């Protein structure tokens, strides 16, 4: 670790299983924040419930560990009252897109300046391996012993369609890329959605016979390509990584300020 100043050391070793990808997300999020030289006091992290959401307990920023699926709603409240602060919201795929799906699309639609990190392990880790909206057709879960018939969302396409002004995907294997993307997402003014493919060896890995954490990260290496790579023409099953959307569009808190000015009769 470079900067122990950013973590609450008294809670380590952390609770996550050996090889859990969520720890790698924590590791590289801290590096992104360190490289941006952000002060602990400038950052607010809100999270919901899930293995992934426990990340907020380990970082020494302002943190709110809230309720399942509602982290973005809490973040919206914080951001509107203190727009100068940086809001970072780590979420599990269930937290973000099952119970929290509505908050997710509307935060993206409003383009509020929040960085959402979707730690996608394709399963409900915390509650024992039930399938999530990201598990995908044909996968196995505790609640789908004969395989899942639900199709999965594509987080990137969903965030794009909902109006997020920064959309990216990376994996726990691609750690330098992850830190770079997180830096860009945090600096971006508007709603940023970053999907990080993150292994859950304990449930998704075991149920789908994908081996251990190392095997699952090898799979991230071999089954993904940089966005725009020619390799995808030969193998359309490859998953693209990188930044998909980065555009300027009116940000919610700034627009809200304008409305206040208008109502007060102080606008030019």
């Amino acid at each position, binding site marked *: 670790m470079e900067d122990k100043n950013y*973590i609450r050391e008294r809670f380590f070793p952390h609770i996550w299983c050996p090889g859990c990808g969520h*720890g790698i997300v924590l590791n590289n999020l801290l590096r992104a924040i360190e490289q941006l030289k952000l002060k602990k006091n400038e950052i607010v992290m809100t999270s919901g419930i899930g293995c992934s959401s426990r990340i907020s307990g380990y970082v020494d920023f302002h943190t709110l560990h809230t309720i399942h699926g509602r982290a973005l709603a809490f973040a919206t409240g914080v951001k509107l009252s203190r727009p100068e602060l940086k809001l970072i919201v780590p979420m599990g795929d269930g937290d973000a897109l099952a119970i929290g799906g509505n908050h997710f699309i509307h935060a993206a639609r409003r383009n509020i300046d929040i960085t959402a990190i979707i730690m996608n392990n394709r399963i409900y880790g915390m509650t024992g391996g039930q399938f999530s909206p990201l598990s995908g057709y044909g996968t196995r879960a505790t609640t789908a012993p004969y395989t899942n018939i639900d199709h999965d969302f594509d987080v990137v396409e969903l965030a794009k369609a909902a109006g997020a002004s920064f959309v990216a995907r990376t994996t726990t294997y691609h750690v330098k890329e992850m830190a770079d993307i997180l830096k860009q997402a945090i600096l971006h003014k508007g709603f940023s959605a970053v999907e990080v493919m993150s292994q859950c060896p304990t449930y998704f890995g075991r149920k789908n016979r994908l081996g251990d*954490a190392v095997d699952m990260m090898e799979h991230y290496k071999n089954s993904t390509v940089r966005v725009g790579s020619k390799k995808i023409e030969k193998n359309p099953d490859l998953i693209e990584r990188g930044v998909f959307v980065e555009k300027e569009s009116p940000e919610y808190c700034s627009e809200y300020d304008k409305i206040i000015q208008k109502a007060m009769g102080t606008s030019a």
Partner: protein
Amino acid sequence: MAKPKCKELIINRDWCKGCGICIHFCPTNVLEMDDEDKSVAMRIEDCICCKLCELRCPDLAIDVVAEPKEKETEN
């Protein structure tokens, strides 16, 4: 320019959970698992200081300390 060298590789044994990620992905095979399922730097002289083990450790258990770039030659 001299290649970066590793001065010290600190592994926090209280935090390491023996997942083997650092060992498997080290490009020069520096690390090994000991019989207590903790990663140890067996061949530190081969370390190229890429820090990938440190960045990929889910438990924040590794610190790769690089040799200072310019050694003080005076006195």
